[in-house]
């Protein structure tokens, strides 16, 4: 009871403070961990001393939930993946169209720029430009699982108790590809997609017996992999690259059906209040020397021309150990998620989570 009054006071104070700071030039950035490293912010402040940068770390789902809660207010720049823009904008109207004339698109890798543009155009307005890209795939300890190469291998009984995956949509899609379906093509026909999902659910429920545990984040995945408790897992490429630095036996394995590629973008929330600062940030971080710092921090490739060459050496080695040119050609970019698919996939995930196996 006793702490209520200070609490209310604090609330009032933070409201006032919030209002006050909105007046000044502050860039409120809603992004992923590592996407706004301190050295980049310092350099940005050097160039634009009158802009403060406030960073809130999040992930795709939470970014959209946060923006939805406020109708697109509270942040000036956000970085959801390219497949998380079209449907949320249609459903919740949380983004603002971009003024491409204020962005130096000439430095961007044209293939990625075009891809994002095609995916995020609504009524002729473009809502996103690419920033960094990477893949989701598999990793394996070569010394213990030398011929691990497909999503389906995660469920191979010979690795019983030695594999892991993250119970999110990526594994649904990967498993669908491994079973010979093309889930992205089926997005156009939700009935057909449901049929694919049903098969995937059965497969993954049967798979529960094999895996050790579902990982929840990079930390627990790394711990399981480094300690040898598991020998292979679904992974983000950046996590695998980091582990490669500590144990060169652990490599990223692009699945035989193709690694799933994502592009994290820049979008401006509908009620963003510092558009100019946002555009300045976008142009600033796409500069080559900043991109280098960015890749070092995130382990992902910046979507500028020759982005792969800007990777730090250790990372370049890890990428080269993982990908051949054929693998790169085989990348499957996440397709736009049409309305309704999240719900279907969510339900599928619930079924897998709740299944008691046996």
């Amino acid at each position, binding site marked *: 009871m006793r702490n209520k009054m200070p609490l209310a006071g604090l609330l009032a104070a933070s409201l006032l403070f919030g209002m006050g700071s909105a007046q000044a030039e502050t860039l409120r950035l809603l992004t992923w961990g590592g996407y706004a490293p301190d050295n980049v912010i310092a350099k940005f402040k050097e160039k634009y001393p009158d802009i403060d940068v406030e960073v809130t770390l999040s992930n795709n789902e939470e970014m959209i939930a946060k923006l*939805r809660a406020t109708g697109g207010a509270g942040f000036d720049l956000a970085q959801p993946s390219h497949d998380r823009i079209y449907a949320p904008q249609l*459903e919740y109207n949380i983004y603002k169209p971009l003024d491409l004339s204020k962005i130096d698109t000439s430095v961007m890798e044209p293939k990625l720029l075009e891809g994002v543009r095609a995916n995020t155009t609504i009524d002729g307005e473009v809502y996103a430009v690419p920033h960094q890209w990477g893949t989701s795939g598999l990793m394996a300890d070569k010394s213990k699982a030398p011929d691990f190469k497909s999503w389906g291998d995660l469920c191979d009984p010979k690795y019983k108790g030695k594999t892991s995956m993250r119970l999110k*949509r990526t594994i649904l899609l990967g498993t669908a590809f491994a079973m010979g379906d093309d889930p992205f093509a089926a997005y156009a026909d939700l009935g057909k997609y449901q049929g694919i999902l049903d098969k995937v659910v059965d497969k993954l429920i049967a798979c529960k017996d094999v895996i050790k545990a579902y990982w929840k984040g990079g*930390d627990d995945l790394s711990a399981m992999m480094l300690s040898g408790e598991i020998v292979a897992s679904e992974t983000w490429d950046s996590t695998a690259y980091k582990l490669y630095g500590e144990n060169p036996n652990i490599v990223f394995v692009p699945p035989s059906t193709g690694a799933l590629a994502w592009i994290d973008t820049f979008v401006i929330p509908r009620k963003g209040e510092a558009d100019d600062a946002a555009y300045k940030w976008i142009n600033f971080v796409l500069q080559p020397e900043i991109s280098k710092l960015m890749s070092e921090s995130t382990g992902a490739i910046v979507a500028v021309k020759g982005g792969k060459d800007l990777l730090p050496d250790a990372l370049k080695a890890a990428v080269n150990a993982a990908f051949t040119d054929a693998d790169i050609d085989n990348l499957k970019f996440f397709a736009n998620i049409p309305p309704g698919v999240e719900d279907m996939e969510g339900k599928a995930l619930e079924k897998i989570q709740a299944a008691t196996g046996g």
Partner: protein
Amino acid sequence: MVNQERRLLPGAGSVMKHRDARRLSLILLFMPLALWIVLLILLPHIGMGILSLREKIGPRQYEFGLANYIAFFQEPIYWHIMARTAVISLLVTVLALIVGFPVSYYIAKIAGPRTRGAMFMFCLIPLWVSDLIRAFGWILLLRETGVISGILQWTGLASAPVELLYNDAAVVVGLVYTVMLFMIVPLTSTLDGMDDAMIEAGYNLGGNGLTVLRRIIIPYAMPGIVSGSIIVFMLTAGSYLTPVLLGGKYSSWFTQTIYDQFITRYNWESGAAFGFLLLFFTSFVVWIGLKLSGQSLSSTVARS
């Protein structure tokens, strides 16, 4: 009253003014509490209530209805998870009581004032660090290549690494550890109010240790037991990080389902409905507990 004031014409004005000032200061004093209740408890719940009653029929199109609640009852997955959550929460509550009661008894009746302070501090320690750090602490201890497994192998009690993490037992242990303080505080304060002579009288009149415990100490401590159990049960059923991080592939927790509704499925309407269902369900369990123990909410939670 009014008449009297009118008759006291010369002084009436100042009396009124004085009274207004007092009323105003009273209102100002209660303001933070009222604001706290309205802004942080009432309004969000009303908002969630309205949200939970919206049926989504298309993009940006909603209709008023109970579909979100009906969906819960039509899908066995949901109420299985709810039942699971309730059963494990009850188990955690019982274990917290079994572990916490002797500790409370020791603090209230046996320990000296200094030991007492130290014991309370020990109980507080789990709350000094965040949920996340606490969970990672348990992960370090329990995992296959973790501390406990290592000790078991080193002492020869186990011949191969033992996986203690990623199962319901790990969740239960982690939760009991977290909620222990909330069981101990109300129990200790109730036991503290018990006259030592009551226990001696129990022996003096011919009771053995078990009788005294069963017939005197436990019934006396009942309000504390019930209030501690209510708090612990509610906290446990509503916890998120511990069950998610320590739970295994076959563990699921209802808060996780709510989170998934909100975040993964973008389905706020059903998330809100699930939130209310959890609230109703846990309240229902608490109500049954109160009925069975013959206590009332005011005699337990309000008292401690």
